[in-house]
């Protein structure tokens, strides 16, 4: 499903003219199969988020190739990448990143609006998902009226709603207490099983990383042992 080869990225930091070049990704190569949960674990600052951002197309890598569903995405233009994301990726963020002016229901509906799905169809899809992630009671609440766990459920539903095959999650439980964390991880596992979705989970927490079928460890921008750390 996803092949990353020799991915390198360097940030320039500091004042202009006196920049320091900081390599953040060093020859990262990895493969993610369809229907798997893959976790990338590492200390803070090890380059996990940068890897995800490059994979998602939020930024262009310095060098290396990324293939998603047999397409070389590193070459896509900004608009093309946006369309590609809409059809192939769902996103779960640490801070949920919900629209404060939209209800839970409307937040889930948003990607369908972007896709131009007719209202009736949207309604049916969103209602089904609301049930699936267990927020029927609070579907018409605004994000600031929801608990962290509920917000993350809304955000998961939003990631699922377009039937994208790959879900990218950056510290999905980073803002949750351990009890809620367990609930969310169980939800992810059950969605993976029932829908066959591919999950890429980025975390600094080994406990979270351990729910994955495959686990990679990133250290100072390079994969430890050059690849797969453990297979469940």
């Amino acid at each position: 499903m996803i092949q990353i080869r020799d991915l390198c990225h360097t940030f320039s930091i500091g004042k202009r003219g006196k920049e320091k070049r900081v390599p953040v990704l060093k020859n990262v190569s990895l493969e993610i199969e369809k229907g798997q949960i893959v976790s990338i674990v590492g200390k803070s600052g090890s380059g996990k988020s940068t890897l995800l951002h490059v994979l998602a197309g939020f930024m262009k890598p310095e060098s290396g190739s990324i293939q998603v569903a047999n397409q070389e995405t590193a070459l896509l233009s900004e608009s093309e990448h946006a369309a590609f994301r809409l059809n192939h990726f769902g996103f779960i963020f640490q801070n949920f990143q919900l629209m404060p002016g939209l209800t839970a229901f409307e937040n889930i509906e948003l990607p369908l609006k972007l896709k131009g799905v007719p209202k009736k169809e949207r309604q049916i899809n969103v209602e089904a998902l609301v049930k699936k992630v267990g927020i029927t009671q609070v579907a018409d609440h605004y994000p600031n009226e929801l608990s962290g766990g509920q917000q993350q459920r809304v955000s998961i539903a939003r990631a699922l709603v377009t039937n994208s095959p790959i879900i990218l999650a950056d510290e999905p439980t980073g803002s949750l207490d351990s009890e809620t964390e367990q609930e969310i991880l169980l939800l992810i596992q059950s969605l993976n099983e029932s829908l066959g979705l591919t999950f890429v989970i980025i975390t600094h927490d080994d406990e979270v990383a351990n729910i994955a079928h495959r686990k990679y460890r990133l250290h100072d921008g390079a994969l430890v042992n050059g690849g797969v750390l453990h297979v469940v």
Partner: protein
Amino acid sequence: MSFRDQIDFIRQHMKKNKLRVFMTVLAATMGCAFLIVLASVGFGLHKTMTDEMMSNQLLTEVRIFGREDGDSQITTADQQKMSELENVKAVVSRSYVDGVTSISMNDRTGQGDVQLTNLKEEEKANLALSEGEMPTKPNEIVIGYHFAQKLLTEAETELASQSEDEIPTGYTESMIGKTISLELTPLTEEKSDPKVWDFVVTGVAKEPAKDWMMDLRVLIDESYRTEFQEFTQPEVPAEESYFEVYVYADDIQHVGAITDTLKNDGYNVYSITEEMETMDLFFTALKAGLLFVGTIAVLISSIGIFNTMTISVTERTREIGVMKAIGANPKLIQRLFLIESTWIGVLGTIIAVTLSYGISYLANWIIPEIVMNIVAEEGMEDISVTISLIPWQLVAIASFISIGVAMISGWRPARKATKIDVIQALRQEL
């Protein structure tokens, strides 16, 4: 994203910042209304002037005063040719008497506007009688409607000169069949003796259309022209006696064409279309100037739109980042902001147009009232004054400028929105 969803999306944003959006729309409204009202004065005065001009002059009249080369006279043959032109109703040759005239009837004397003319052609042109018949003999004449009123006895003249309030009635009986005497004194350096001619009145012209107009004409057959001239200006040969030629079109829409034809034939021509053209040019320039000044107001109000849009882009940086992250096309984001600024412009324009019609109505009602009170001159009540006029063209121009400016001022903020970096935006705190 469907257009309806885009509109919903924008509406939601605008609702969230009602006060700010309201103030921005208000600024756009004021700019646009200022533009419309200012320019409407140009349109209003243009209309007033045109109406005035059209009501005071015979629209179908084309006046010919000589040839362009300056020396050769207009001959009867020339006049014949003119009358054969298409859409020409009549060709009148008219001249004034070159000397001091005094008209008397028994014990009454009066001042008249003595004209030597071709009465047959005058009749064809526009001369209509309120009383009597057109003359058939050379010594028969037609007089203007008000002529008899100014035919005063000595006592009446005395009275009129003493107080302005007492207006003598003049001769009140019918003038038809009466004989009047025209006394002519040449305008020479040394004193010369006057000479008297007698004429019989057969017709009185119709009352002029405007009640402040006075018709004091005394229309005498042009066969007297040489006779009068030999008396007043014996040094000028009779065949060089000066007269003006008036060509009358059968309809106002043919005046322009007739004017052009005559000009091409080498005549010095004046018609209302000529004057209208000059006036139109002046008012077009005035309107353009007013539109220009008004546009500056619109530009000033556009700063408000620019500000509001920039603030709202900045405020929504995180939301825009999320939208882009989950797959919104940058072009869509740009469009959403452009629609929002355009919508502010459209709202402002709609309110401004409505408001402007109200202001225009009030201005046309109140300003003439005030002016009349200050000036308070008699005969002014008759003049209808349009201060402000808003034709649909003005609405179209103002809408175009105002909405266009709104769109342009939303352009940069919208571009800014598309350039928002997803990673930076997602990093923003809630």
